[in-house]
């Protein structure tokens, strides 16, 4: 018997909430007519299209600009859930930064035999071009997106780390804007942590890691591959909301190991670059010589310590799928404690015993390419056809080192508007974690992706996924007796906690 997945609002039942904290949300779903929800959904999508919040699907023509479907029912984290999650995220991101600093520096983790060295030396994500560079303030992964899935009330798992150029934060902010406009009543009925401080926090992070010699106000920019890039909306959105320039490679030049941007009044020195260009395309003198997107000399400026690149080049070695399975060891090694957020159990097919297990259980497992992304090169055993399974079997036998496998998790669901009304759909979650010179911060929110097809576990936007707003509920701060705030809250009687 297959048990239904855990629903984050309804628990295993519905339409009542699983607990008192979420009852307001469950009631809102019961009481708002579905026709009204549908109307709001359409209104949100019309706005997104008008604002041009679109993404391009690779392989389709330019006219195929799509918006990512938006769902009007939010998911919600309780204050104490979020508190525990945050601690786990901070621990993990601190470990990622420590690992990068170590692997491009002293390599203690190899000397102490925590990782097999061939995993590093043979890995194209370990960049010799970065060896010997210390980024300003020793921060490598300034902006991390940690992909999580949930299988029960207290069961969160890390599915993937994104320490290169994680995207999606604009959806966190735009979805919240849409929710405030479309469902203002929810924000009166629930106390929801705001996310709109993210741009300020990001700018603060950028400024905090400006190069050491930079005395005046650091000049920060966002570097985009250009408006044909699928994430261009996000690039412009971030630059705009931070009030800094959005530059393309052609706007930048390097002279005497210093980066400048070309303005109508001449050159202006640039100190901190949030680059949304992959390492390969950053500098044609150092990485791919055929890159048209890059800035010749930018790596020399970086190596000389004259500019900060966010995130640091070379970070791919920390979020590589082959490294992922060692993350618990990595977290233990650098934090000295047990990982607060567990990994999903992972079989490394490069290991013969693991390979045997995977081949014997292909119809139960999710198999992934170590160097794949975006949901491509992936087998979901339980829903795959016979032919798909056999194709993967052949690929696994031919090149086992390119694959890992994981159990098919019963991903949690959240009620979602469908053609047939509200119905549970599987979700994942990407919170955003910022690291500056002063430490690590987690923004109370994130990107919830939802698989819109019934039963589907693939949430990628390129494969029919949508997004939802992600509420983080504020803790119940007992207001002083007799305060006006208490009177104005009204509604349900509230039991006060002890102490």
């Amino acid at each position, binding site marked *: 018997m297959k048990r239904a997945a855990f629903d984050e609002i309804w628990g295993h039942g519905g339409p009542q909430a699983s607990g008192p904290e979420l009852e307001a949300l469950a009631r809102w779903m019961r009481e708002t007519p579905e026709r009204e929800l549908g109307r709001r959904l359409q209104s949100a999508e019309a706005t997104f299209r008008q604002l*041009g919040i679109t993404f391009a699907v690779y392989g389709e023509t330019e006219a195929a600009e799509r918006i990512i479907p938006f769902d009007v029912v939010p998911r919600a984290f309780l204050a104490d859930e979020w508190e525990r999650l945050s601690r786990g995220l901070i621990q993990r991101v601190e470990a990622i930064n420590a690992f990068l600093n170590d692997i491009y520096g002293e390599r203690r983790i190899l000397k102490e035999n925590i990782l097999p060295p061939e995993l590093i030396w043979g890995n194209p994500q370990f960049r010799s071009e970065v060896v010997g560079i210390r980024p300003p303030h020793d921060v490598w992964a300034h902006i991390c997106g940690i992909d999580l899935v949930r299988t029960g009330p207290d069961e969160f798992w890390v599915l993937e780390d994104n320490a290169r150029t994680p995207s999606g934060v604009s959806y966190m902010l735009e979805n919240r804007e849409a929710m405030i406009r479309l469902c203002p009543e929810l924000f009166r009925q629930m106390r929801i942590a705001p996310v709109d401080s993210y741009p300020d926090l990001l700018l603060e992070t950028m400024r905090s890691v400006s190069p050491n010699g930079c005395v005046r106000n650091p000049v920060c920019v966002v570097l985009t591959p250009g408006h044909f890039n699928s994430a261009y909306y996000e690039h412009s959105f971030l630059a705009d909301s931070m009030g800094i320039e959005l*530059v393309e490679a052609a706007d930048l030049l390097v002279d005497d190991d210093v980066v400048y941007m070309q303005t109508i009044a001449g050159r202006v020195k640039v100190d901190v670059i949030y680059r949304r260009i992959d390492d390969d395309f950053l500098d044609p003198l150092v990485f791919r010589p055929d890159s048209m997107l890059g800035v010749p000399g930018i790596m020399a400026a970086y190596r000389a310590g004259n500019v900060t690149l966010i995130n640091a080049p070379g970070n791919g070695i920390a979020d590589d799928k082959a490294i992922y399975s060692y993350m618990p060891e990595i977290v233990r090694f650098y934090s000295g404690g047990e990982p607060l957020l567990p990994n999903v159990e992972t079989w490394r097919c490069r290991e013969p015993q693991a390979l045997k297990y995977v081949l014997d259980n292909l119809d139960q497992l999710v198999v992934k390419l170590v160097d794949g992304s975006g949901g491509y090169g992936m087998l979901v055993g339980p829903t795959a056809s016979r032919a798909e399974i056999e194709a993967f079997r052949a690929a696994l036998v031919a090149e086992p080192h390119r694959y890992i496998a994981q159990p098919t998790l019963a991903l949690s669901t959240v009620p979602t508007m469908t053609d047939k009304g509200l119905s549970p759909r599987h979700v994942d979650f990407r919170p955003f974690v910022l690291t500056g010179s002063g430490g690590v911060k987690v923004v109370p929110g994130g990107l919830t992706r939802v698989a819109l097809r019934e039963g589907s576990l693939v949430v990628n936007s390129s494969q029919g996924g949508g997004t939802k707003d992600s509420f983080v509920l504020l803790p119940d701060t007992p207001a002083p007796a007799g305060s006006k705030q208490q009177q104005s809250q009204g509604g349900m009687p509230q039991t006060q906690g002890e102490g």
Partner: protein
Amino acid sequence: MAMLSRTAASLYWLGRYVERADFIARLVEATVRLDALSARPAGDAAWASALSVTYTEDAFAETGLSVTQADVARFLTCDRSHPGSILWCLDVARNNAKAVRTALTRDAFSAINRAWLQFNTPTAGDEPAEVLGLVEGIKAETRGFEGAVHRMMKNEATWFIQLGAAIERADNTARLIDVKYHLLLPEGEKVGGVVDRDQWTTILQTVSAVTAYRWLYNEGLRPSLVIELLLSRGEVPRSLAACVAETVEMLNLLGKRAGLQGEADRMARTRLARMQKTRADEVIVSGLHEYLNAFIRENAMLDAAIARQFRFI
């Protein structure tokens, strides 16, 4: 902080292309009207001149289509294959707008995006009413864009858009007068017939100056007055005098902000000084065609000087 050169270039071209799309829309609208009033083959001649005004005779000839309202109207509106169509202008304008969207307000960007979306799902057929409906929609969006630009903060971004629009408008108006005047006044012929009257009205409509003409001149349509209006009446926004003055004004504002002036400022000021001494009747006597051609060439040189001065490359 001074603006990025690329941003400046995109804003400038955004201004030019929105203006061009608007101009073509007006031209098509006025030509539909003229065509309705004229007997064949005068109607076809009207469409031929529309091609000439938009520098697209050669491109149209290559299509092998005949000069009829249906084909020319479609060619000037929905044909993406050449730079003289509204759709092409909107494509480029939208790409420029996307490249600089941080410099635009949401309103301004949405107006361009809406115009583009509208044209990318055109339902219109070939009937005059449908062409007019499409064109009317574009005019509304470009007006919306201009309004949004006017509501933007008065800074380099708006000035570059307006500078681009002024340079483009100058070229459009000069070309319109040149082509139409040639067409309407074959050498030695007298003016004043009924068809002529419609033709001259078409010109005024294309530059939305019908009302202005009535306000400024208390008499019926006279070609020399129309020429004067379009050449030297600064009160009319699409006159050459107004475009030339606006160019100087925008360059002035930009120069003050950046703290430097250059070749483009000098050229634009010299042109303004000359323009202020120009009398339409003298121009007509000494050769309007030569005058307009020289104006168009000088306008192109000024465009190049602007690109150099603000490092557009």
